[in-house]
């Protein structure tokens, strides 16, 4: 054993952090996001426990959690469908071949939407089946409301995918971690596993500005009483329309900037 060699290797890995802002942020990002999500889940459960009238009250909460977990996966996979498709070509050094082919950027994006939708289809079928088998949780019992709720998650996932892919296109592999980080930045704010009113009052307007919040609130409304969440869906569709316009503008802007700065070629040969 040589202390010199061990310290040289340790220095090599430490230096990685010195020159990489994303790596430094990552040190705090994941633990903070975990703390926020599980902290608010705890607050929600404490509140439920304090107000519970009967032991069966907990069953409703578990149903919310299972539904939320499956719904969250839809949002996450939709975003990943766009971002990971782009990253796959970066990782395999195929990006140049794709972008020198006669494709329009819109075609590229639509292809990633398609892949994302297929990925979601596979995941949702598997999770729904497992949830029913293991926990007797029937997602399909939500009825017709499932479709517009799913569609809204898909739309927001696509918008997030375009934003993260734009960031990677512009700032390169240094910000690659955002492919996984951005959805988890949204998670505590989108009130995935707890209602919006668990969040501090000043955070609630931010939460309401996210389409996903209305989907999760809508889902809880359906699971609690079976009412069709019209108001939440209207909010979600409206916000998603705005998000998609902004995300498409951002993605195109970043694509043009990447071409201007020669970053596509650089990213494609890294």
């Amino acid at each position: 054993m040589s202390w010199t060699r061990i310290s040289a290797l340790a220095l090599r890995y430490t230096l990685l952090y010195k020159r990489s802002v994303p790596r430094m942020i990552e040190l705090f990002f994941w633990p903070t996001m975990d703390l926020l999500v599980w902290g608010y889940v705890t607050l929600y459960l404490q509140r439920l426990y304090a107000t519970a009238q009967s032991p069966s009250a907990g069953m409703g909460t578990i149903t919310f959690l299972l539904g939320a977990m499956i719904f969250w996966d839809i949002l996450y996979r939709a975003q990943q469908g766009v971002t990971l498709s782009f990253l796959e070509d970066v990782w395999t050094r195929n990006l140049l071949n794709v972008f020198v082919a006669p494709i329009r950027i819109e075609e590229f994006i639509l292809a990633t939407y398609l892949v994302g939708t297929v990925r979601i289809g596979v995941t949702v079928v598997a999770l729904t089946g497992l949830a029913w088998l293991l926990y007797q949780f029937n997602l399909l019992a939500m009825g017709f409301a499932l479709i517009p709720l799913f569609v809204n998650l898909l739309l927001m996932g696509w918008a997030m995918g375009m934003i993260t892919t734009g960031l990677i296109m512009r700032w390169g592999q240094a910000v690659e971690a955002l492919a996984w980080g951005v959805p988890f930045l949204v998670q505590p704010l989108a009130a995935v596993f707890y209602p919006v009113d668990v969040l501090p009052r000043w955070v609630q307007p931010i939460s309401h500005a996210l389409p996903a919040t209305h989907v999760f609130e809508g889902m809880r409304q359906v699971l609690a009483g079976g009412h069709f969440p019209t108001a939440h869906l209207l909010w979600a569709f409206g916000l998603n329309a705005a998000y998609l316009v902004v995300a498409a503008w951002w993605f195109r802007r970043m694509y043009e900037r990447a071409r201007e700065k020669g970053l596509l070629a650089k990213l494609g040969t890294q």
Partner: protein
Amino acid sequence: MSEPVVEVQHLRKEFDGTVAVADVSFCVRRGEIVGLLGPNGAGKTTTLQVLLGLTTHTSGTVRMFGKELRSHRVEILQRCNFSSAYAALPTNLRVWENLRLFARLYGVRDSAAKLGFLLEVFEIKHLKDKVTGHLSAGESTRVNLCKALCNDPELLLLDEPTASLDPDIADKVRRILRQIQREKGISMVYTSHNMREVEAVCDRVVFLHKGMVIAEGTPQQIIDRFRGSSLEEVFITVARSGDVLDGSGTDASSGISPG
């Protein structure tokens, strides 16, 4: 004289104030192989990236097939293709899957027959079902070239296509490229650091230095103009001339004069 496939006039490209290409003008005629030569940092890769639509230019005009590249990018790229030693095909797909995928991207009709023919020409039919990531450098290069020829391009842009190949395979690749170019009348823009290869393959050479064209002509004309004995000798002299060639000066000691 045949019509130009590529017309580049006063091309300039700056990256955040750094000039990568200062002022480059050249043309490529139908059925011609033009070599872009120059030491590292001369601007050849940037020029190639501009031609491929990967990088936008700061000023100047780039016309391909008589159309402005900025406004007809997709239409132009449909008639081109590209191969580089630095760009790989997806390594997790089989050779045949990769080729079918790119044939689809380029809208190739009857792609199975077309790709089968190309695999035969490059003597790699036996690799059809192999995973691309498991191929040797020589095999990968030939698969890349099959992809580059899948749409019968009128213009082929080749970035060091024989880099990392052994002399035997490199020679085979050069012969096949020459043969296809003769038979189909394809125009090619070719970059390479192998000067003997450039002499053997290129009809004409555009010599770049510090983002400017310093000489243009057949390989022999370039050698004569710089009073060298080979393109390699000219290359080394230009690369070592440092700032002597800045502006349009003449380096009396080396006998270099801008073309």
